[in-house]
């Protein structure tokens, strides 16, 4: 049953003296609307929708009719205020509810809000208080419906939401990839009792079973046996106990294993069996442990019986019994493994505690149609897994007012899979999982910490005209440094830790403090400079023989990719020597054979018929895009291949954004009849990729891009740059030909791959025939 226990946590004697650090928690209240609240036995979860006003950097072409003079910048950069939608979820102990309601009342400006959706076992208890304080009508929603709605939402929108728990593995949390189709699944909610629900579609679910032996049994029976009142304390006791002192094991009966049935000696034959036959005192710890095993095993067994009966393999566990407690996750996992012989894995959810609140919120926001958008977890505003874990932080947990937060941004664009993925279900964007690779984790955390000063400096420099930028930049520094520290101790906080997540977290933090595009001016300057050399590069290439030309174009593409402010080795050079040029970059490149060198195969392929359409995920602005990418795709266009340039929707480092690329392309077209014609004839298309990351997740791409790719019959995918082709997608399997090109601008990474800094990766892959048809 999904019934949350009304517990004796002194929820009536609320501590009004608690002061909140409010702006850190209930953020953006001034625009908040659509409140929802989920009150459980001990925790309250509040949800609201708000809008966030933040700055975005926009680029705009100057009027071309006016005669340009040499000193004019290429395009205009302006900072505009933009309003985006954000969901706020806050979790806190019930003891704080009154204080929190008071705070919200005092800061709530929006008057159109009339109701608050409420769910959870404690909702009725606090109904009057909520109505009195907030002057909102409490509208109760069915608990299970909310839970399922919330579960669907997080499974769809949060990558790495689900994980397998492995207590003894190097990394306790093994995060699962977002499955393109989340249904069907089974949700086992362990509140005071247990509810087992089969979910077949967004609105189609059924309670297929349950059990009365649940969290309430552990708590109630545990309190009786050990005279320990609190649930967390009981778990603490259990984690220190030895169940074998209380339970009767197979070996206590058999003297060893029951071999013919494959029952090992350590198996529990009878829970609490020894307390029936032995006349002695049992320790609290041992009894608590025995009780925990008894209940976990029982739930695991029922879960397996129901999974088998309904033929379900994805089994998620939630409820207050689980809620981030490693002890219960471990015992449940063990039980499921035992009873299904490993056929079914117990899955847990990072945001399990929020499901009810998310669901209640979604019920109230149906007219806004939140399910038609894609959402993204905001790493800057979210606390991450285990932020209030009793095991990790026992002091904090003891009534200090730990508030856990989850913030989700509504994305402008709807995101879908790249249609050219060979197998969307097994696609993993990231090359190295830093949660599991401790050495790599150490290195990258160090690397990002080292680079932080530079990023702060860059952020301030990008807003010289704004004196308070220094202060904001400092706040950014603190926030990001804190995130890095958190990740050092809890690398699993936001799902698998990867170079991508570290980069994305940095972008989120920069945005949080209104540094939407610290590189805008640099990008502008570099674009401007590179444009001046464009014709010269194109002309010099045209004079070469076919073979020479192909090689020069490939080399040019790689040399262009050296210009990357995201790589510290390069940004140091660029910082000290702004004149560092294209030719010098070419000289820095590794001589062939490259670290990964499929150039010969690529050339052989080029001797064959042209590709129908090439999709090019571009990287940096400036020399990279203008002198590297454009001459390269120009050749493809001449060969008769259509080209789709996919660039970022929003800024990240010095990566070229879609709006910048529009302007650049126009300018190039004005100089170059080949590009001009291609644009006019729609053989060259510029499409945004839906991302604002320096990396690339091919399972979350702009829906429009996916359509374009499909419509044009794309048969070649080119992915360029360290972020997109090395940190991510290095092992991505595509159903068409692909080129993955990058210069390794980090000596540690180069060494890991067996090379030196400025090593070249030129990876050309052709799927086997069978896979292609797939």
């Amino acid at each position, binding site marked *: 049953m999904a*019934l949350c226990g009304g517990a004796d946590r002194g929820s009536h004697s609320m501590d009004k003296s608690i002061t909140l650090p409010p702006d850190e928690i209930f953020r953006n209240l001034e625009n908040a609307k659509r409140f929802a609240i989920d009150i459980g036995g001990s925790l309250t979860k509040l949800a609201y929708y708000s809008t966030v006003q933040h700055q975005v950097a926009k680029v705009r072409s100057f009027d071309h009719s006016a005669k340009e003079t040499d000193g004019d910048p290429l395009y205009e950069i302006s900072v505009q205020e933009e309003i985006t939608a954000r969901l706020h979820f806050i979790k806190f102990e019930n003891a704080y509810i009154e204080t929190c309601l008071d705070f919200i009342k005092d800061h709530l400006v929006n008057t159109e809000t009339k109701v608050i959706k409420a769910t959870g076992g404690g909702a009725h208890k606090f109904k009057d208080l909520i109505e009195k304080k907030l002057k909102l009508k409490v509208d109760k929603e069915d608990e299970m419906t909310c839970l399922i709605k919330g579960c669907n939402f997080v499974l769809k929108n949060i990558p790495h939401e689900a994980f397998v728990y492995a207590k003894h593995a190097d990394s306790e949390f093994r995060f699962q990839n977002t499955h393109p189709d989340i249904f069907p699944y089974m949700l086992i909610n362990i509140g005071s009792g247990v509810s087992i629900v089969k979910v077949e579609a967004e609105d189609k679910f059924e309670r297929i079973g349950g059990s009365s032996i649940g969290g*309430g049994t552990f708590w109630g029976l545990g*309190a009786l046996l050990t005279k320990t009142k609190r649930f967390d304390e009981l778990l603490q006791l259990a984690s220190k106990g030895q169940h074998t002192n209380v339970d009767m094991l197979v070996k206590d009966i*058999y003297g060893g294993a029951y071999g013919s049935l494959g029952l090992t000696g350590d198996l529990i034959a009878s829970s609490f069996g020894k307390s029936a036959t032995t006349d002695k005192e*049992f320790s609290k710890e041992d*009894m608590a442990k025995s009780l925990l095993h008894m209940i976990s095993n029982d739930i695991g067994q029922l879960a397996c019986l129901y999974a088998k009966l309904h033929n379900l393999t994805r089994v998620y566990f939630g409820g207050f019994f689980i809620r981030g407690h490693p002890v219960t996750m471990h015992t449940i996992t063990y039980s499921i493994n035992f009873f299904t012989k490993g056929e079914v894995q117990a899955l847990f959810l990072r945001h399990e505690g929020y499901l009810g609140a998310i669901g209640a919120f979604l019920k109230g926001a149906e007219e806004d149609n939140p399910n038609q958008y894609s959402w993204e977890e905001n790493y800057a505003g979210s606390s991450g897994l285990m932020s209030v874990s009793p095991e990790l932080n026992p002091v904090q947990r003891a009534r200090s007012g730990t508030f856990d937060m989850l913030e989700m941004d509504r994305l402008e664009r709807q995101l879908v899979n790249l249609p050219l993925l060979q197998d969307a279900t097994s696609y993993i964007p990231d090359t190295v999982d830093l949660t599991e690779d401790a050495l790599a984790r150490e290195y990258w955390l160090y690397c990002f910490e080292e680079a932080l000063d530079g990023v702060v400096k860059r952020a301030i420099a990008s807003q010289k005209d704004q004196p308070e930028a220094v202060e904001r930049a400092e706040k950014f520094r603190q926030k990001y440094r804190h995130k890095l520290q958190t990740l050092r101790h809890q690398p699993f906080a936001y799902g698998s830790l990867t170079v991508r997540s570290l980069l994305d977290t940095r972008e989120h933090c920069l945005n949080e403090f209104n540094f939407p595009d610290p590189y805008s001016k640099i990008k502008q300057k570099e674009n401007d400079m590179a444009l001046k050399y464009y014709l010269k590069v194109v002309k010099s290439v045209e004079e070469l023989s076919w073979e020479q030309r192909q090689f020069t174009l490939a080399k040019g593409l790689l040399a262009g990719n050296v210009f990357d402010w995201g790589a510290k080795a390069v940004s140091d050079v660029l910082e000290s020597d702004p004149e560092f040029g294209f030719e010098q970059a070419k000289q820095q490149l590794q001589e062939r054979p490259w670290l990964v060198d499929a150039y010969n195969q690529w050339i052989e392929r080029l001797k064959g018929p042209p590709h129908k359409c090439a999709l090019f995920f571009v990287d940096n602005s400036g020399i990279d895009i203008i002198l590297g990418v454009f001459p390269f795709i120009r050749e493809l266009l001449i060969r008769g291949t259509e080209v789709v340039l996919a660039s970022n929707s929003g800024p990240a480092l010095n990566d070229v954004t879609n709006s910048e690329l529009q302007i650049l392309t126009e300018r190039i077209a004005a100089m170059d009849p080949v590009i001009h014609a291609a644009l006019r004839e729609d053989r060259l298309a510029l499409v945004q990729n839906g991302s604002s990351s320096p990396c690339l997740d091919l399972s979350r791409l702009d829906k429009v891009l996916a359509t374009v790719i499909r419509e044009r019959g794309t048969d070649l995918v080119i992915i360029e740059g360290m972020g997109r082709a090395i940190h991510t997608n290095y092992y991505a399997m595509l159903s068409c030909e692909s080129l993955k090109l990058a210069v390794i601008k980090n000596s540690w990474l180069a060494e890991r791959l067996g090379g030196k800094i400025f090593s070249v990766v030129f990876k050309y892959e052709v799927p086997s025939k069978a896979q292609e048809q797939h």
Partner: protein
Amino acid sequence: MKLRRCSRKPAFPWFGMDIGGTLVKLVYFEPKDITEEEELEEVENLKSIRRYLTSNTAYGKTGVRDVHLELHNLTICGRTGNLHFIRFPTAAMHRFIQMGRDKHFSSLHTTLCATGGGAYKFENDFRTMADLELLKLDELDCLIQGLLYIDSVGFNDHPECYYFENPSDTQNCIKEPCCLDNLFPMLLVNIGSGVSILAVYTKDNYKRVTGTSLGGGTFLGLCCLLTGCETFEEALEMASKGDSTNVDKLVKDIYGGDYQRFGLQGSAVASSFGHMMSKEKRDSISKEDLARATLVTITNNIGSIARMCAVNEKIERVVFVGNFLRINTVSTKLLAYAMDFWSKGQLRALFLEHEGYFGAVGAFLDLLKSADDA
């Protein structure tokens, strides 16, 4: 089940023993057709064992003969006699072995057929302490053979098997004896200290489907800890007077009535021991209520697992055995109700009078079989 004619009878005494986690179950065949000649030949040891077992109903402090279960005039292997059912705690096993030594059991040249985990655990003790070799037998094999045999011979001209008429109606729920023409396929739920669940298709074809550690040992163990009681009888006595709804949280305690969205009755238990999360409730609860709640929790859980197994295995007959059900009508009725209610009448719970003795009977039968094979 037809017993084949024994070509060579094993030497008396005829025993079958099932050494479980909590209880030792012993069946003893007392021949009533002893000829004078035999009587003269009968060694003193054997005589004294027979007299000791048949003239007492209690042995030591803890041994008990279940006189009401005794089977009369049983003809087996060409001999006619009574089958006695005796039990004592496994904790007294060493005293039992000592007695075997004192009574020079080893001189009788009989085979001691034993099943249950204790046959393995105590094998060495039998050997070293009493110079006795055990013939160890698989407990599930014995359970099934024993059960089928007793069912076939009946309970002194009455059926061994019974069920409850109107299981979902507490007022009119009555125990009804029944004879089943065919037991197969059956789901056999053996509730001892722990629980084993078997799917039995024919007399030799069965599989262990699953088991649970929440069994009779758990009931008694928790009751001892919660109420300070010491015996199963005491625990059951308390449970019979208690009210579990003071301890368990019901659906209506949370929803004020039925949880209609999911068709759950208000009277269904939502959380076993759920009320005990509250200190006030903990302070006001009686031992009887706690004992009752423990019994109801364990029983319902077994019922729930058994029901799921029956559905998964597509078996409609669920037979409950094991000593947990001894003098425990609260549980038998509850199981009957649970099978009927949750399956909407599809499943039927069946019970057997000799609850916990089938393993021992199976071991006893093997003694005769082993002689046959010899």
